[in-house]
């Protein structure tokens, strides 16, 4: 598991790390506008490097959104399994890396994720070493406490630049959607969980940026038959942007160059015939492309080989950034 740290401004009284040997107070947050630090460190290094105004970031390894009820009170938290660390929901950032982006399938069963071909960032239910493996855990919930040993996790709010969807796939590949903010948020945006267990789900976001996902746990107490509901806990996600640049051979004479564009950016395809000493020039016949937030594909003729390509990305009122094409 790797942590990096996130700097921000916010409540000064919050302790982010609740378990483990280290006792330190950190983790203030800003309402929005997290600023990412460059530091990437292991757990011990994180503890050692902890300082005010840092929020730890989880970006890999098995981690659960944990739901517990003890001594008459709900406890919604984040549990990093491998390091066995627990965090308050608002005091840790759950990272959705840029390479988690995919294109929404044209399979109509996945319409709930958005239009076919549009970008969707997914933390998947199957572990990938380079992505956070985020599950739902109720291991600490004592059996018998709740009727039918079942509690419900309900989506209450999504604050962020896009939509949030929580779903899983059944054994035959059908999506089972538990939460979807695209069609509004109501009581149907809920996932039931069995006490003493855990499960893995897909966490999907439609747009890069920072999100606060408000979740609320509830259950019918077996002893009283009354429904008990937690406060809303806000979980912090940072969905990152990456150009996701790819080159594929479309046919014998055409290359398809594709990337994920951003709004307020302009893209210039450049090429050269000599990588070591050649001069990069605007590729003949290809006009600059305005970013849309969607995937953009340019078909490029393969004449005059060898030829190398790069994409110049111009941000409004900003210096150009060059991303070489592999």
């Amino acid at each position, binding site marked *: 598991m790797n942590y990096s740290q996130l700097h921000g401004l916010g409540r000064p009284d919050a302790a982010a790390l609740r378990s483990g040997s280290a006792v330190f107070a950190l983790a203030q947050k800003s309402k929005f506008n997290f600023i990412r630090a460059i530091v990437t460190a292991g757990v011990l290094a994180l503890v050692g490097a902890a300082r005010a105004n840092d929020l730890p970031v989880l970006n890999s390894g098995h981690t659960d959104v944990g739901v517990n009820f003890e001594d008459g009170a709900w406890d919604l938290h984040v549990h990093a399994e491998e390091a066995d660390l627990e965090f308050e929901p608002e005091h840790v950032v759950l990272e959705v890396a840029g390479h988690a982006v995919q294109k929404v399938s044209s399979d109509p069963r996945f319409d709930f994720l958005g239009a076919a071909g549009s970008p969707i960032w997914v933390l*998947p239910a199957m572990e990938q070493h380079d992505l956070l493996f985020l599950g739902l855990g109720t291991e600490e919930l004592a059996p018998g406490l709740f009727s039918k040993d079942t509690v419900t996790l309900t989506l209450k709010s999504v604050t962020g630049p896009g939509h949030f969807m929580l779903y899983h796939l059944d*054994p035959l590949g059908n999506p089972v959607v538990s939460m979807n903010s695209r069609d509004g948020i109501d009581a149907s945006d809920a996932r039931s969980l*069995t006490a*003493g*267990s855990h499960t893995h789900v897909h966490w999907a976001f439609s747009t890069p940026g920072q999100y606060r996902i408000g979740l609320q746990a509830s259950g019918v107490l077996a002893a009283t038959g009354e429904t008990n509901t937690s406060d809303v806990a806000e979980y912090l996600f940072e969905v990152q942007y990456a150009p996701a640049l790819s080159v594929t051979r479309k046919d014998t004479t055409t290359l398809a160059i594709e990337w994920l564009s951003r709004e307020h950016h302009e893209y210039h395809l450049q090429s050269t015939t000599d990588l070591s000493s050649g001069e990069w020039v605007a590729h003949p016949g290809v006009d600059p492309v305005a970013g849309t937030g969607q995937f953009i594909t340019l078909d490029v003729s393969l004449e005059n080989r060898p030829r190398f390509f790069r994409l110049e990305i111009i941000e409004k009122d900003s210096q150009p950034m060059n991303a070489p094409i592999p």
Partner: protein
Amino acid sequence: MNKTVFFILVSAGLALAGAPRLRAQCYTFTHEHVDLLSVQFHAVSNSLSLMASDDDHGGAFYASNQCVVVCPESMKFALPAGTPMGNEGDPLWILPQNPYAGVPYVGVSAEPIAPGTFDDPLTIQLTRIEGPGHFLVWQTTGFGSFDLKMDTRDGIGSNDKLTPFVGAHEHHNWGFTTSGVYRVYFQASGRRPGQTTNIVSPETPFTFHILPLKPFEHWTATNWPCECDLTLIAPGADPDGDAGVNAIEYALGTDPKMAAGDAWPTVSLVTANGQAYGAMSYTRNKAATDCGYEVVAASSLFSTDWQTLTTVHETIHLGDTERITMRDTVPVGGGVQRFFRLRVRLAPPQPNTP
């Protein structure tokens, strides 16, 4: 259709004393979250093993011959078109990758192994299967695609494997093409950093009961809930050493773990139409509905022409069993010798769906 035929000779009345085997502790997983294939590393002996870890009960460990996983009939699916698990409409019993109420949630775990102890990933190889159908393991991923990890329909090869990360765990769908008892054999292996050879676990069988069980499977599972040793539980095995193999004990309703001869078929003389006939009496287990019974008679023990007796002389109902007497076709007298024997035919498991 091939049938396995078991004979019992009426003269084989002498029972060998066989000590009944103690039943090992056996836990039946019916709804729990169980990491069935949990890879264990034993540093002292530098060895790997596979055990079941019951996540619902504090990670209690069970040896593979101490537990059984039950898949209820409610998890029988008809496959839709376009899956790699079979043709549209084919039945498949599935232990799913997501929790379902009342269904075991079966995982694979390398969590007990500390990161850095082994190179990533470990391998859990499918090595063998005993059961009436085929076995498949897959995950549904992405936009409804299928990642097929194990599939016995094309045989078992080195590609029938899982590759869990060290320290991690994962969930899959476990599919069975027909109901019945399956024993699936796995072997874990891994390489320690800097080494050039793998550490390989013993081949370890895990038992699945895919419901409904056929009557003989149910009888076997009742008598040996967790046992995988075919020298004890196969239809032709005789673990109590009383000369009655399991199929015979099943057919006659006797205890396969207790040597006993008093329930074997007997021969007597009966009278019908003023004449005396030889007859064979046997006890039938009424629950053994997948069993065929046939009393045959011949004039020589070495005859190649055993005649099937079809005349039921008497049936006595005895609760779970009944005592049936079959009468010979040849009256006694005239110095004729007659030999009788009982044939028991166990219906084979249903063939796999082609």
